[in-house]
């Protein structure tokens, strides 16, 4: 099955940019899969596929206003949850007034714990040919 690059435009003035890839037997199916995989949540105004190794661009036919669907699927988008942060703050005030909030040492607002990025050059690698085992890989905190 052929590999297709998926391209998109966030705004009408943007150039096409690669956003990912899919596998499909032909351009028609590639466009369907590209739309469902990469443009389901109104991520852009246009989409296209290009068979890997070829130049021809196959542009999706959905107009910007309908790409991502026209039925009410607001529960799939951020705007459906506007106000959640405010509700959390109001509830926190209420809990504090009722004496239910937990009063323990915590970082000052806006201060994160130290030590963010780690330079790859700082890692000791006595044997750069080492490849992590399946279990070591699975012990990392990368999850869905």
């Amino acid at each position, binding site marked *: 099955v052929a590999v297709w690059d998926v391209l998109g435009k966030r705004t009408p003035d943007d150039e096409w940019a690669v956003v990912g*890839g899919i596998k499909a037997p032909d351009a028609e199916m590639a466009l369907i899969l590209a739309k469902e995989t990469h443009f389901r949540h109104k991520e852009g105004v246009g989409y296209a596929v290009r068979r890997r190794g070829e130049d021809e661009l196959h542009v999706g036919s959905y107009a910007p206003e309908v790409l991502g669907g026209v039925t009410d699927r607001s529960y799939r988008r951020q705007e459906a949850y506007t106000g959640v942060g405010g509700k*959390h703050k109001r*509830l926190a005030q209420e809990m504090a007034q009722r004496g239910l909030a937990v009063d323990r040492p915590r970082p000052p607002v806006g201060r994160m*714990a130290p030590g963010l990025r780690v330079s790859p050059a700082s890692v000791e690698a006595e044997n*750069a040919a080492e490849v992590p085992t*399946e279990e070591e*890989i699975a012990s990392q905190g990368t999850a869905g």
Partner: protein
Amino acid sequence: MTYEERAAEFKGRIDAGEKIEAGDWMPDEYRLSALKFIEMHANSEVMGALPEREWIPRAPNLKRKLSLTAKVQDEVGHGQILYRVAEDLGKSREQMFDDLVNGRTKFHNVFHYPTYTWGDVAVIGWLIDGAALVNQKALLDASYMPYVRAMRRICPEESLHLRHGEELVLELVSGTPDQRQMFQDAVDRWWRPIMHFFGPPSKKRDMLIYWRIKTRSNESLRSEFFSTYVPKLWDVGITVPDENLAWNEELRDWDWSDPGWEDFWETIRGNGPMTSIRLAYRKAMWDTHAWVREVFAGIPEAA
């Protein structure tokens, strides 16, 4: 140029912050490490959909059913995107899925546990998705550019899931005493798996950081999780089952209790409480849907 010289040059690109594309030359160790890492991530997206999928029929109302269904679809979609990225590193999607359902490769420890109540759904939706987002935002700066593009696609959706989860939590903690207790019980149940989520203390020789496939230590990620979520839990009167958990102003970091790692490694090895059941489900789906893959692979030319 010898292999070693090319590998050293490649490592120089990594250290300089350059991005690697799928078509670039790369050392076998980099390719294999990136493949394994992204494959495990894809496996975890697909397996991570199962604990929540179990609650779609039991969601308390239509709005929750719709949003949970959409979330499960998103997670499986993330798996599809990531398997595609991994395929370019030299392993077919079919082989990756076959390895997953037959236990040859692994998925994340946090998805090996049962869900008992709607409170568990709230914990997964807020705290576990929150932990995942802490990790995945750090991966936006990884060295393998196709993975970065995938994370640019995935992180906004995870951010949406987080809001969804936070809304579920607020609904429970502002509800009846029974609802509050349901959420508190779920936090108590999940706290240890969440502490395990970020993995054991990082090794000094972490090859994933060496190749900048990941960009931060397990400690730093766990600490950010504490700073972001623990105060919010405390604010709404929810405790966590760790008496030692507190911000240490002197160290400017968190004190916490080591959760112990024996059962963590057992879970990783495939001996978690729900491992065999969830893998059996995935295997059954894989087997019964083989015809779809066959149709896709062999669509005949029109007569």
